[in-house]
């Protein structure tokens, strides 16, 4: 989604994109969130390989909760950018692309957060596994 949004912004502004600070900021935010999501994912994979998948429900929950809110921020930045660089039919087609890219089954973040909270409350501090 970040690459798509960045691409359409580049198409419009080319090198002059550097002067569009709000758009550049939106692209940076999406890249940052993508790096964060990917890092959390890789970490859970590594932990699962180390401890076995059944033992890593807590880190998976933490990663999922983070990813759910990260996706919201990515979508919001992408929409902001699309609205700023297009209009009319072109815009509608871009929004359709964003909808396709952002399609995913939502996590039950209420339940996930309850589980995470329970674990850290019992431990009295932040724990990973």
């Amino acid at each position, binding site marked *: 989604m970040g690459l798509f949004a*960045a691409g359409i912004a580049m198409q419009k502004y080319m090198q002059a994109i550097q002067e569009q*600070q709000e758009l550049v900021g939106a692209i*940076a935010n999406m*890249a940052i969130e993508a*790096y964060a999501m990917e890092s959390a994912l890789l970490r859970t994979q590594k932990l699962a390989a180390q401890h076995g998948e059944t033992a890593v429900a807590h880190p998976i929950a933490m990663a999922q909760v983070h990813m759910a809110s990260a996706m919201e921020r990515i979508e919001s930045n992408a929409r902001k950018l699309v609205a700023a660089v297009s209009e009319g039919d072109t815009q509608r087609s871009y929004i359709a692309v964003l909808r396709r890219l952002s399609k995913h089954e939502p996590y039950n973040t209420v339940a996930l957060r309850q589980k995470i909270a329970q674990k850290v409350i019992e431990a009295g501090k932040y724990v990973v596994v």
Partner: protein
Amino acid sequence: MPKLAAGEIVGAFALSESFSGSDSLNVRTRAELSADSKYYILNGEKMWIPNAGFADLFTVFAKVEGEKFTAFLVERNFLGFAVGREEHKMGIRGSSTCPLILNDCQVPVENVLGEVGKGHLIAFNPLNVGGFKLGAGCVGSARRCIESVIGYAKQRKAFGKVIADFGLIREKLADMAAGIFTGEAMVYRTLGMVDAAIAQLQAGHDLAQVRKIIDEYAIECSIIKVWGSSSSISWWTKWCRSSAATASWRSTRRSAPTAIPVSIAFLRGPMKSIA
């Protein structure tokens, strides 16, 4: 260097001025070669210099001949060098922050760090590593904070039960934990990549190569700084006094100019970690 590493002397990094911050190469401090070519005479001021209250050795950036951006090692006892008063800050009060005044400050020519006109190489590396450290510091302090927050939530009562039993409080705690987990993931991952790249250098490598590696991960380091200081982690450290300062790290010099390289890199695709 050995004394700095051992903590026998303390260093400080003096780049920012009243009129230049994010535009770090725009310094006004001037350096002119003395008539006998033995000294550079520095004139100008620096603002918001961490450690200035007690540092012994300062890396000061000035322009030679009005345009050659150069790094100088200035000792506290040099003629013409003075440290101003401690700033009143909203947070990180344990960190000394003072202005510096350079009034015909005499700096021996041997104290040029690197080459004249190549001061940017000296400046950017600590900024890259510093960016990483600030983000990592935020994650670390969030880890400490969540412990005191949980402790408080388990003993404070409202409506007949401890507040840790309420759904919205638990939601906040879960978000803190999720943020710490992700922050740790980014910090360890980035450092792992830098370590792996450094390990690949041959023995007897040049420091310039190490610097180049750190430069290559500059984007990731900036990401960590911006994310760490602006994410919900910094709001949760509201319980710790430094929160205003950590939140401001997002809007310091690295944020706006960082957005450009992060997004340009994203557009071109050379971000090392996302292949």
